[in-house]
């Protein structure tokens, strides 16, 4: 009998083209490469410099998301790019996709969106695959039981040319989340709580497998939120074993098999789980019942605590610098901190259930005086679905801006950004210094917390709003 294997081992083993030796890494086959405008131009240049073709156009899928404006084009069709460089970068990807025959979900596509939102929507993301992109949040696709990780531009070029990557086998880390999340507490609170526990480098060198009752109970969108932020703990990738929730979500999507081929695929996918007795290099246990609405208080995602808990005292000058930057006071909770900007969107929390969660809090309420709120759907499909439900009307009626899909203020390279000193409650993934604009202070939070904070004008517990509604 074969030795028991982890989910990660199974995916890894089935993609090894050449085995790792002491002197050389493994040659690992990549089933799908996702491409966007920021990290690909130099990789396509590399193909040209070497006179190479794109090996598998059918395993390559491109979209525009990072440098793209979220405000509509003017009457003459001119798009409000932040800079001429941003416009040129988008034009470069369009030209590269034409030249090399890559399917591009560009401006004219009804499926355009953030790369980690549209991959799953199209069913391009499937269990058991290896998926890469020149983008660290590629870990998102691990929610489907795919081994998915971010790579640099040189490696993007390697995959374009050979459909393979040179990789040393990473270690495995199991994060067991037992119990059930309390009402009003969601996947974003959970993953911030996890990173707060294991640290911003707690996953370095590892692929995380999230498992346990609390994980199995999550929707696919919530699982994507969790896996998305694996990189914020330094992990190479995050994985969740596919199950009935996964299969039901994927069924009928454009790129998945149909008919008998679907049944055959699902039968294969059912084997994608960690065998009893398989060993991980490390294991961590988290009790879901302990998770509260969680926010960050410092300048990396590991500096996360329950919003009603006191901000911990700085251990050294470096932590003190982070608190000073955030204007956070040790001993005081983040709850109640005045808010300038609220951002709902990103590959972490820009999907339909995220927008519903925010709209649920905002319905019949107003964004507080002096607070600016941006709601940016993760894709055109999310935008269509949200508008069909009237969510855009809820946001607009509350005084929030309803934008076109894109990465927007998560990475602030398209002109959507906060001003120096402003405090942003953001559903995105990184609270690094200057991430949302030079001098901007980011507090990461769930969509419900973001919406509650927009209404209150200060960082607020969404459960108060949800409870009020139930009582009414």
């Amino acid at each position, binding site marked *: 009998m074969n030795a028991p294997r982890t989910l990660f081992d199974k995916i890894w083993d089935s993609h090894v*083209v*050449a085995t790792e030796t*002491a*002197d*050389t*890494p493994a*040659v690992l*086959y990549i089933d799908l490469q996702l491409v966007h405008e*920021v*990290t690909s*131009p*130099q990789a396509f*240049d*590399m193909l040209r410099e*070497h006179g190479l073709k794109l090996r598998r156009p059918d395993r390559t899928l491109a979209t525009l998301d*990072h440098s793209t404006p979220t405000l509509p084009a003017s009457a003459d069709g001119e798009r409000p790019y*932040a*800079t001429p*460089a941003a416009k*040129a*970068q988008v034009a*470069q990807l369009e030209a590269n996709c034409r030249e090399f025959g890559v399917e591009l979900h560009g401006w004219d596509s009804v499926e355009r969106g953030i790369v980690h939102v549209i991959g799953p929507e199209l069913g391009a993301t499937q269990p058991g695959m290896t998926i890469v992109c*020149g*983008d*660290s949040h*590629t870990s998102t696709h691990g929610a489907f039981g795919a081994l998915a990780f*971010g*790579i*640099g531009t*040189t*490696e993007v*070029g*390697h995959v374009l*040319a*050979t459909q*393979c*990557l*040179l990789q*040393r086998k*990473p270690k495995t880390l199991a994060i067991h989340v037992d119990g059930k999340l309390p009402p009003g507490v969601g996947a974003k609170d959970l993953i911030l709580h996890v990173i707060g526990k294991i640290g*911003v*480098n707690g996953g*370095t*060198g590892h692929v995380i497998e999230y498992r346990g009752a609390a994980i199995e109970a999550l929707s696919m969108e919530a699982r994507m939120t969790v896996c998305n932020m694996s990189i914020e703990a*330094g992990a*190479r990738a995050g994985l969740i074993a596919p199950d009935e929730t996964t299969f039901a979500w994927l069924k009928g999507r454009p790129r998945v098999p149909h008919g008998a081929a679907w049944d055959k695929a699902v039968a294969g996918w059912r084997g994608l789980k960690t065998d009893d007795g398989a060993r991980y290099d490390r294991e961590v246990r988290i009790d879901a019942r302990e998770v509260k609405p969680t926010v960050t208080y410092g*300048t*990396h995602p*590991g500096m996360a605590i329950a919003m009603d808990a006191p901000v911990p005292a700085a251990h050294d000058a*470096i932590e003190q*610098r982070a608190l000073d930057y955030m204007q956070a006071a040790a001993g005081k909770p983040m709850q109640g901190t005045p808010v300038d900007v609220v951002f709902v969107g990103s590959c972490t929390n820009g999907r339909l259930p995220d927008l519903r969660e925010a709209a649920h809090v905002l319905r019949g309420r107003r964004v507080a005086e002096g607070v600016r709120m941006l709601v940016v759907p993760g894709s055109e499909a999310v935008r269509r679905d949200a508008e069909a439900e009237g969510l855009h009307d809820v946001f607009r009626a509350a005084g929030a801006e309803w934008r076109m899909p894109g990465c927007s203020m998560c*990475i*602030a*390279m398209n002109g959507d950004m906060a001003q120096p000193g402003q405090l942003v409650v953001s559903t995105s993934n*990184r609270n*690094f*210094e*200057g*991430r949302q604009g*030079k001098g901007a202070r980011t507090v990461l939070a769930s969509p419900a917390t973001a919406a509650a904070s927009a209404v209150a004008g200060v960082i607020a517990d969404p459960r108060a709003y949800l409870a009020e509604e139930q009582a009414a």
Partner: protein
Amino acid sequence: MKPVTRIQSRTAVLADENIDTDRIIPARFLTTTTREGLGKVCFNDWRYLADGGDNPAFPLNALEARGCEILVAGHNFGCGSSREHAPWALLDYGIHAVLCSEIADIFRNNALKNGLLAIVVGAEEHRWLLDHPGVELVIDVRGQTIARPGADPIRFELEPFARHCLLEGVDQLGFLQQHGDAIAAYEQRMEKAA
């Protein structure tokens, strides 16, 4: 890539922990379509004042840090995004080696592929390096040692294939291409099974 065998330089120190890729190069500079010229925006928002002048509080602006090719950084350097612009910017800025007690995976991979020595050293040696800014070091890639004055050389681990590529100036793409037949055979096997 040019071979990288030995780096001799004084060190500059950025003691902050968790220096992320947004601090190394803010995202708004990622709209470039080339690899060149990013040195001038390396550490942009830390390095310059609002009026565009040098920030005297940024350690690498100090006169004694100018021209240093070896950066000693606080724990967990390079966390965050996969942007290869981070090592491109550091190299163009004149940094050819980063010494740290922990380096984020993707950054480290990207750095080594561009000939930027991203080297993890032990906690004690890291402490020593942080405490001795400006010290002259000799990094020997073949011997995997860092010579320092007045103390034992520091030994470091380097993934053997990355080391080989650095020493020989080999591009990893060539190695992958040698597996063309194996890749084609793999694809056929997978298509048959599907």
